[in-house]
Structure formats: structure tokens, C-alpha cells
């Protein structure tokens, strides 16, 4: 793009020296950037770089502590979202801000101004949906929609306000590759109509493919502006992370056929466990010692239910559905499975894997009180906890996993996402389990910690354990796993060799193309 062309474009939004402080943390520190009309502008940065804070200030849910926001060259104080919308700023949230118990039309009505009568909303929504190729049923209950459909509702809701600037926060993190392509087409149509888009992401290939310019954030500061088309993914990554991430050493791809099968799931079926839960349908796979086995899929396709079934949080009627080292364990509880040498790490850190208001030592007791009762408990049937033993384990985990924390034994809630995840996984690594099942190991974790966690998982498998990784991040699975199977609507595909499978194949499987069929 020639310099003269850029000069001709009209600037829509500019941010000057924007600063936001939380306590001692400068979430945004003198941030500058601008967006022109008809531009897709990327805001690139790792988790915790300050992207969300910046966006919240643009949308009026947070107030800056310093600096200013210029809209069409006029300084504006955006006090609340309704004012942002009035200016022409629309927002599609990362964690969708939809209401499950309301219909699509009602969800949309909530973000329209009061002049649109409620009865007209469905009609309007369907008109916009058709125009941009986003099909929806306005009367459907949002709680019943898939993730991709929910995002469509979000986008329609945003477009109905006729915004000039649309902010998208990590829009593809929940989509299949095919769904992402559809989204990009919609965004390109919008650009051709002269709308501007602020595209927040940490996915480099997307940014390079879609965006006209990029602003890179790190630790709350702008570390550079660039034209993504002129950069390579690795140069973008270097700007984003600030240091080169060491590439992880993967085990050899070829799986030794003679190795012991550690985990065997045979014809596992399960009815839905609640109103929003997915049924599991006839799932079978084996994981031998030494393998990292990946389970891919879009959120909500039964991965959580499968995790609960494998962990024993939900037991099976038929013991033979799950076999652990030739021992049928389907009817055994989570602690009996742990005692046999299995370990588990769920997706949700707070309220499942750990409890925010308990200390780290207590959180170790949470998953290990039964498997390591001789270490952490004394007093016979009284089962008195031994704080000193727990602290010793904690300091061992802190050292091996390089956990950053304040104080000796703080509450779990005070740790950052990445550091807490290191403790949660370290708690299980510390046991040297022969089987580790982990759900979303690096969700919301910064790149440095994520690399370390992946390396630890591979090291565990190298030492002869079986590792099962459930993840929505295809890159992560392709990097670590020997084989990858895909979950779709409670069914599991035939496992694919990670070294040979293409992203397209995985994407099709995620969309349910030939799930359940023997490949």
C-alpha cells in the first residue's frame, strides 16, 4: 500500500498516551495507535499484554487514568458502552455477552436503542443476517445454540447498531478453521463497505492474512506498529513475545506397537448429565505408554463429559468401558483411579482444579489426600492434615515448575493464570503418574509458561507415562501429540497420525464431517 494512499484515508479513531493502572500494575502504559476508515487493524499481543483493558476503555466499560481517545479527530470521554455505541463503536466479545435464557431476538433487542419496537427486532435481525451470510433463527433460545451460532448472534447484534468501528476480541478462538474462513469473508465484505475493524488476536497467520496494519502490545506498552503483510510470522512473534520461545523437543512420531496399553476406552457411552450437557456415543481408543494422545474439537462437543468419565468424577455402569493397565476401572471413583497411578487436570482452574480462596498447600491436598495419604495425613482414622509435608511438596513444585508467587503459601486466587496452571500440573507431575489426563493445559496461559507446560507433558510421556491432552488449540496438539482424535457431538473420530494429518482434515472432523466413521 503506497504512502499516498494511506494519507488519503480518513482517520477514524486515534488513541494517545492511554494509561490504565490497577493497584501497582500498569495494565496500559502510554498506548498510542490509530485506525483509518475501511481498515482492518490488528491488536496483537499475548494473554495479559493489556489488549482487553484497552478495548474496555474504547468501549466505555473502563475509564482511563490518563491519555485521550480521539474519534474523528475530536477528543471524547467514553463514559459508558451506550455512549460508545452512540459514537459508532460496536463490540463482539471474546466471552460472548449473550443471555442463555433469552431468545436470539431478545438478545439483539437489548443492545438496540429503545426506539426500535420489540416486535420489529426479529425482522431487522434476519435482514442483516442475510446480507452478510450469517444465517440464524431469531426465535431460538440462545442457550441451545452452538458456539459458532452464538458468535453470529454477537456479530449481527453489533452490525444492527450500524457501527463504523467494530471491535472483535479473539473471534476465532472458538471456531473451526472452516468457520473462521466464513468469518473472514464477512469481515472483508464489511471492509469493502468502508467499515473499520479492530481485530484482537494472538494468532499470527490470521493477522497476516486479514489485517492492513497491526499494533503490537507487550506488558501494557506498544512495542511496535507494522504492516503484517510485510512481516513473517516469526518476526511478528518476536515482537509479541519479546524473546525467542524455545521450540519444544518432541518424541519420535512412530508409536512402538509393543508398548503397554495404559489407558483403554471401549464403547464408552453416556447419557447427557444435565440440561446443557452432551451425550457420549460409543467412544473407543487406546493410549500406550510413552504417547501423547490429543483430543481436538470445538468446545461443547463432549470433551468435558469425556474428561469426567475418564477421571471418575462420573463413574460408568460398565467397569469394562475404561481399562487402566488391564484393570477395568469404569466403576471406580476418582480417588481409586488416582491410587492406581492416574492423574487428572481439568480445564477450569478456579472452582474445579483449584479453589481460589484456599492456600496453595491446601490446594495440593485437594487432589492428593487419597493417593498420598501416608505423606499428608496422620492420626489414623482422624486423618489429621500435615501442613509441613504439604509445604514441602509446594516448594518442590514451585522450584521444578518455576512458579512466580508472592509470599510462601498464598491463596490460589492471587496467582496469575499461567502460574496457577503450573502449580495445578506440577501437583500431578510431582506424583510421577503413569497416566495423566489434562484438559486445555495452556488455556489463557502466557507463551513462556505454555511452552514450559508442553515441554513437561512431553517429558512425562518420554519417561514412559501415557498422556492424554484435550485441547481446542490445533497448533498445540500438532506440536505435541503422536496421534490426534477429534470430538464432534459426543462422538470421536478415528485417531489421526499428527505427523501426516492436515489441518483441513482435522477441521472437517471438527465440523462432524465423518466423525464416527472408520477412516
Amino acid at each position, binding site marked *: 500500500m503506497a504512502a499516498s494512499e494511506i494519507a488519503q484515508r480518513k482517520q477514524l479513531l486515534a488513541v494517545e498516551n492511554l494509561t490504565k493502572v490497577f493497584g501497582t500494575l500498569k495494565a496500559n502504559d502510554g498506548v498510542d495507535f490509530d485506525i483509518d476508515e475501511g481498515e482492518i487493524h490488528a491488536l496483537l499481543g499475548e494473554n495479559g499484554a493489556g489488549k482487553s483493558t484497552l478495548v474496555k476503555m474504547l468501549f466505555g*466499560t*473502563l*475509564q482511563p487514568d490518563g491519555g485521550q481517545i480521539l474519534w474523528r479527530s475530536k477528543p471524547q470521554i467514553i463514559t459508558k458502552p451506550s455512549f460508545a455505541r452512540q459514537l459508532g463503536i460496536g463490540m463482539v466479545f471474546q466471552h460472548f*455477552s449473550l443471555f442463555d435464557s*433469552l431468545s436470539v431476538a431478545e438478545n439483539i433487542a*437489548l443492545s438496540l436503542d*429503545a426506539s426500535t419496537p420489540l416486535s420489529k427486532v426479529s425482522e431487522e435481525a434476519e435482514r442483516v443476517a442475510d446480507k452478510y451470510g450469517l444465517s440464524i433463527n431469531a426465535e431460538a433460545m440462545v442457550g441451545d445454540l452452538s458456539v459458532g451460532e452464538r458468535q453470529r448472534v454477537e456479530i449481527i447484534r453489533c452490525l444492527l447498531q450500524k457501527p463504523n468501528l467494530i471491535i472483535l476480541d479473539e473471534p476465532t478462538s472458538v471456531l473451526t478453521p472452516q468457520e473462521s474462513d466464513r468469518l473472514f469473508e464477512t469481515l472483508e465484505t464489511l471492509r469493502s463497505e468502508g467499515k473499520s475493524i479492530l481485530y484482537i488476536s494472538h494468532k499470527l497467520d490470521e493477522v497476516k492474512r486479514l489485517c492492513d496494519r497491526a499494533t503490537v502490545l507487550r506488558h501494557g506498552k506498544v512495542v511496535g506498529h507494522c504492516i503484517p503483510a510485510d512481516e513473517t510470522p516469526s518476526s511478528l512473534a518476536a515482537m509479541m513475545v519479546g524473546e525467542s520461545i524455545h521450540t519444544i523437543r518432541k518424541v519420535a512420531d512412530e508409536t512402538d506397537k509393543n508398548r503397554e496399553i495404559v489407558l483403554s476406552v471401549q464403547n464408552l457411552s453416556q447419557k447427557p448429565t*444435565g*440440561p446443557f450437557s452432551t451425550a457420549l456415543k460409543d467412544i473407543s481408543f487406546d493410549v500406550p505408554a510413552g504417547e501423547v494422545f490429543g483430543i481436538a474439537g470445538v468446545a461443547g462437543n463432549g470433551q468435558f463429559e469425556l474428561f469426567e468419565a475418564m477421571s471418575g468424577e462420573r463413574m460408568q455402569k460398565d467397569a469394562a468401558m475404561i481399562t487402566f493397565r488391564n484393570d477395568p476401572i469404569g466403576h471406580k471413583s476418582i480417588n481409586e483411579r488416582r491410587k492406581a497411578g492416574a492423574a487428572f487436570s481439568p480445564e477450569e482452574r478456579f472452582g474445579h482444579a483449584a479453589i481460589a480462596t484456599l492456600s496453595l498447600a491446601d490446594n495440593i491436598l485437594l487432589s492428593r489426600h487419597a493417593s498420598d495419604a501416608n505423606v499428608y495425613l496422620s492420626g489414623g482414622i482422624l486423618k489429621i492434615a500435615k501442613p509441613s509435608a504439604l509445604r514441602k511438596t509446594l516448594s518442590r513444585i514451585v522450584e521444578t515448575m518455576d512458579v512466580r508467587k508472592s509470599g510462601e503459601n498464598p491463596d490460589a486466587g492471587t496467582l496469575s493464570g499461567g502460574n496457577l496452571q503450573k502449580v495445578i500440573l506440577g501437583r500431578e507431575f510431582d506424583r510421577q503418574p503413569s497416566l495423566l489426563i489434562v484438559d486445555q493445559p495452556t488455556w489463557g496461559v502466557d507463551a513462556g509458561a505454555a511452552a514450559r507446560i508442553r515441554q513437561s507433558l512431553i517429558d512425562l510421556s518420554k519417561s514412559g507415562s501415557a498422556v492424554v491432552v484435550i485441547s481446542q488449540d490445533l497448533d498445540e496438539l500438532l506440536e505435541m501429540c503422536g496421534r490426534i482424535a477429534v470430538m464432534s457431538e459426543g462422538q470421536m473420530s478415528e485417531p489421526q497420525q499428527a505427523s501426516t494429518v492436515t489441518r483441513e482434515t482435522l477441521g472437517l472432523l471438527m465440523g462432524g464431517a465423518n466423525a464416527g466413521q472408520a477412516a
Partner: protein
Amino acid sequence: MTPEIAIAIFLTIATAATPLLIAALGELVVERSGVLNLGVEGMMVMGAVTGFGAAQITGSAYLGLLAAIICGALFSLLFGVLTLSLATNQVATGLSLTLLGLGASGMIGENFIGLPGIKLKAIEIPLLSDIPVIGRLLFAQDLIFYISILLTIAIWYFVFKTRAGLTLRSVGDNHTSAHALGINVLKVRYLAVMFGGACAGLAGAHLSLVYTPQWTENMTAGRGWIALALVVFASWRPLRIVAGAYLFGAVTIAQFHAQAQGVAIPSQLLSSLPYIATIIVLVLISTNKRMTMKNTPASLGKPFVPDR
């Protein structure tokens, strides 16, 4: 049974049902906003004592009603400040509102005990009250009865047909999303809580100005709690609350009649029927887990602290 007796029975059932209906409708609005206020019993009993006292002082039952409504709303504000602005536990705070209400009403009402009450007069609507049967049933009642019917329809319309009602439901479904959309969650909840308080106050005044026009300590006798159960029973739908309230009204009246007829069942067992019925109804409703989960406002009872 002659029509005359049937009409008389219906009228007594309506009198027993009206306070439950009004209190439950108020609580429905509160819970639809995502707030669980267990203080209904306390707010009702405060309304009862205030209504009685204000009527005594002014000589007007209508001013008594007005005072009870204001008192209920102000009293609920106490709950609002704690649970909304200070994010305290809603269950514990609601309980303490009930305990405080029972205590304070006992103190305020000490001098009212034994005084003859002022009864709210029935208002016969001209022409309509002359319609056979229905006229006596529906158009010759006291003001609170009319309010209870209008309130049911108004709340149904408000909750499901208006934009403000949609906002209320959205706050109850997901306060984080509502906040992100720029809805003032705490303001909506304050208004809902105060509306619930006003309704409970009015319901209490019905007890001391219509049902038994006098003041006795703890005269609500668990009706606030039954109103809470009715909201669950109705799965947060206003029209079903009418059915529930009249069902309970019928149970109450049936046990009175049985006692009056000298049925050979201990009076205490009969008196406990409404409470036992409440438990049975709650069990029946909760066996349908899917429906309960689908209808329960998803953020019910969870405190919301805006991130500035």
C-alpha cells in the same frame, strides 16, 4: 352446596390468597433480577405493623396501606445496601432482614396489642358488582384484592412484553453480560428489591387491615416464606403464582373450616397443613430438575461487583 355458600367460601379463599399473591409477585420481580431476598417474612411483618399503626394514628386504612408500602420499600433498602453495594451473602442477609423485622415489629407493635383494628372497606364497583355470582366474587372486594389482580397482569406484561422487563430478565440471567452491554446492574437490582419490599409491605398490611384487622406479634406466621416457595412453585411466572396462591388460600381455608366443623383431627395438625403442603409442592416441583434449572434466573443469589 348453595351458591351463597360457594361464594362465601371463595371470598374467604381470596382473602387468604391475596397477601401470598402480592408478596410472591414482588419477590418474583426481585428474583427475576437475580437477587434472592429471604427477608419477605420480615418485610411483611413490618408492613403489617406499620399499616396497622398508621391506620390507628390517622384513622384511615388507606393511609395505613400507603405507610406499609413505603415502610416495606425502605426496609428492603437495608437488604439492598448490604447485598448490592457491599456484596454480602444474600441468604444470610435475607435471614437477618427477617429476624430484624420480626424483632422490630414486636417492639413497635407492643402498644398495639389488643387494640381494635380498622378494617379496609370493600369497594363495590357500580353495575359490575350487580352481575350475578361474578359480581359478588370479583367486583365487591377491598382495594388490595383489586390491586393484586391488576398487579398480576401488570407484572406479566412488564416482564415479558416490555423493554424494561427484558432488561430485568437479562440482569437476572447473566449480570456480567448485562454490565458489558452497559446496563446498570445494581440500579436495576435496587429498583427490583425495593419493588419487592413495597409489595411485601402491602401484603403485610392486608393481614392487619383486612384478614384479621388487629395486631398480634409474628402475625405473618410464615406467609412470607410460603410466598418464597410460591415463586419457585410458579417457576418464576406471574400467572402461575395466582394459581399457587389460591391453592394455598384454599388449603388454609379448608383447615379453618375443618376446625370449625369440629372434625376429629387435632387442630394443630390442620394448622400445619399449609406448611406441609409447601414442602410437598416444593418436592413435586424440584423432581423436574430440567424445568427448574431452565427457569431459574441463572445469576440468582450471586453477588455482582462491577469492575469499576
